[in-house]
């Protein structure tokens, strides 16, 4: 396969490194490793910042590095423009001439781009090495992606990690999606959203899917003993902010607890700080940023994994919880996670508090049901989230080969056009 592909697949992501957190960043890292394992020439380019949870300052050493066997090149970070974020066109783009539509984009949309982390040096390098590479930009909102696709032209591909959020409707991003050679979606629902929002030809958006590490084995009993947990264990993982509906989860859980009096604990992991009101501390165990084994032990200990977010393109944490056999309760307003639950049969969905309470009742009063749904979820993940399959579909999408039928996932919802 590599002999027919002289171009280096160059994954461009704002942050990249062993201690970088975030869904898109994790995806970039695991996809790079999977492409490398497949024997495909791959590199990763990023800024020298740490991640979106950290200040926009250098964290990693600038220059060449190797992560998981994959060559990495880090460029000096260009911090966000200070408020009020005057619109900014990077020098590399000024040299080739800014897009004709630039001045027609609304002021606040151009200011948003100026308010996010970028790297002018990285964009210069895209111009310099454009003819030797195929660029895979991830995720969609950042200037490294927006300006990168402008500079890469026909050699630009996009893994957007698109959510149905207000930014997705900005004219800047509509323009970017329409000027990118191909869009690689993480799920069928994300593909449908991209087609719907940007009115793209169907063959311009393919579902390459996403994988997870299938090797971790959690020990739920040990986790419960370690933390002295009794009663029902509920689990949430990820960003603890309004964009993920975390405040809603806390409110729903508080009301459920007040109405039922059930003995329960919500186990949280995640790097960002969270404020739990003192009276809720008996039912919330916040472990903060934990190592991989502890994270998977916590999934394995869970009676129910709850994913309240509607801003998902795949949901790594949902797949990780299924891998450990935890049944899921997802937000019915999120097409991505609801379709995954429908396809796998690995859980239930809720639409408002009444549905949340009813679904929790149904799951918590029946251990056999929980185990069976968790087993279904695990089987689905083992079948649909293999990185080598995702890497093959990614290569096919970039080099526009036919997708081999043997790598097409068997799920009824995953569809490669």
């Amino acid at each position, binding site marked *: 396969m590599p002999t027919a592909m002289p171009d280096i697949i160059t994954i461009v992501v704002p942050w990249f490194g062993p201690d970088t957190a975030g869904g898109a960043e994790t995806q970039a890292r695991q996809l790079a490793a999977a492409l490398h394992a497949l024997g495909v020439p791959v590199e990763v380019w990023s800024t020298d910042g740490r991640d979106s949870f950290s200040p926009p300052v250098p964290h990693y050493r600038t220059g060449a590095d190797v992560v998981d066997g994959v060559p990495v090149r880090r460029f000096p970070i260009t911090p966000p423009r200070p408020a009020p974020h005057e619109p900014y066109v990077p020098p590399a783009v000024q040299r080739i001439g800014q897009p004709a539509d630039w001045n027609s984009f609304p002021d606040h949309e151009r200011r948003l781009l100026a308010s996010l982390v970028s790297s002018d040096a990285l964009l210069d390098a895209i111009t310099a090495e454009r003819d030797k590479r195929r660029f895979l930009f991830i995720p969609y909102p950042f200037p490294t992606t927006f300006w990168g696709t402008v500079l890469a032209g026909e050699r630009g591909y996009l893994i957007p990690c698109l959510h149905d959020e207000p930014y997705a409707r900005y004219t800047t991003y509509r323009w970017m999606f329409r000027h990118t050679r191909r869009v690689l979606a993480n799920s069928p629902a994300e593909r449908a959203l991209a087609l719907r929002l940007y009115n793209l030809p169907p063959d311009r958006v393919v579902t390459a899917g996403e994988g997870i590490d299938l090797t971790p084995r959690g020990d739920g009993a040990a986790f419960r003993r370690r933390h002295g947990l009794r009663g029902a264990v509920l689990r949430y993982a990820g960003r603890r902010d309004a964009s993920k509906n975390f405040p809603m989860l806390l409110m729903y859980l508080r009301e459920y607890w007040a*109405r039922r009096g059930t*003995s329960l604990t919500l186990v949280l992991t995640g790097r960002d700080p969270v404020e739990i009101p003192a009276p809720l501390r008996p039912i919330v165990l916040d472990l903060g940023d934990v190592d991989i084994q502890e994270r998977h032990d916590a999934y394995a200990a869970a009676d129910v994994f709850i994913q309240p977010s509607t801003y998902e393109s795949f949901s790594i944490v949902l797949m990780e919880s299924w891998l450990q056999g935890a049944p899921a309760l997802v937000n019915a307003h999120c097409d991505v996670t609801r379709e995954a639950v429908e396809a796998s049969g690995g859980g239930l969905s809720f639409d408002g508090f009444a549905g949340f309470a009813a679904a929790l009742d149904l799951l918590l009063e029946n*251990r056999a049901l929980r185990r069976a749904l968790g087993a279904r979820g695990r089987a689905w993940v083992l079948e649909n989230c293999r990185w080598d399959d995702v890497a093959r579909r990614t290569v096919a999408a970039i080099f526009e080969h036919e997708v081999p039928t043997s790598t097409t996932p068997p799920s009824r919802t995953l569809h490669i056009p």
Partner: protein
Amino acid sequence: MTVNSHQPDGAPEIAAILEQLRTAVRAQRATRQRSIDDPLHRALQRSLDDIEITRVVSAHWPLTGRTLPQKAIALINKVVRRYLRWYINPIVEQQNAFNDAAARTLHLLAEAYQELADQVADQQEASAPMQHNETTGADRENDVDDPAVEAANSAQGADEDPPAPPPYDELMAQVRARAATEPPARFIELELHNALIQAQSRQQVSAHWTLTGRTFVEKLVALHNRIVRQYLRWLINPIVEQQNAANQALTGALHRLIRIDAALRADIAALRASRQRMRESRANRHARHHHHRRPVVRS
């Protein structure tokens, strides 16, 4: 109250729903009555009305004069105001957008406060009969992890392969049936969070937006405006900066009030949960007494 969707004829479910509706209507009536009777609430309502009346700042008040010199000055002022509207109006509009968001947050906070007061009153009313039937410490200990519940749960397939559960659609039908009997809940804090985010995103009024044009004439006008704005910044910038400081202080106060509201709601939830556990404990004791051992999750 036990609401169970496994009833064969559905009649108890209908009775339960009707009872819930009656309870909700009674609660609403009581809330309205409490609000009307409360002088503090009436004063708050008047303040909110005042905010509604005054929150819109106008840059276009009437400019008139009686005498000829006054009329001449008014005319000059009108011309100056018209000449500077490209500069002043956007600033005023930004401030109005913030005022609108802040006023909405205050309205919601007032509603949240009233709802909280109602919850406290409900708990006080509920506490009177509870005191007559207070459970013992031993009861509460038994209640934490009911051995009967544990045993029943453990019996449900500890190590054997789980039986095939119903398909997703069937399970969701069960969820919907149960959800239909769940008393309604309003989460006013979610509305508050959204309103606060709106206020925070609008608190910074800017006097320095991009001035540009496409045609030669537009570009010339933009250049002229930039020069005028540069000259007038001694006058306008300090006003905007003072207003921004006030906006920021106001959103800070709103944020803290919302946190206090959340803490109080959590307090009441803990109280309600503890009362519910007591009721569960009594129900379980009663069930054990009659040899009906089954896990009780909801009541």
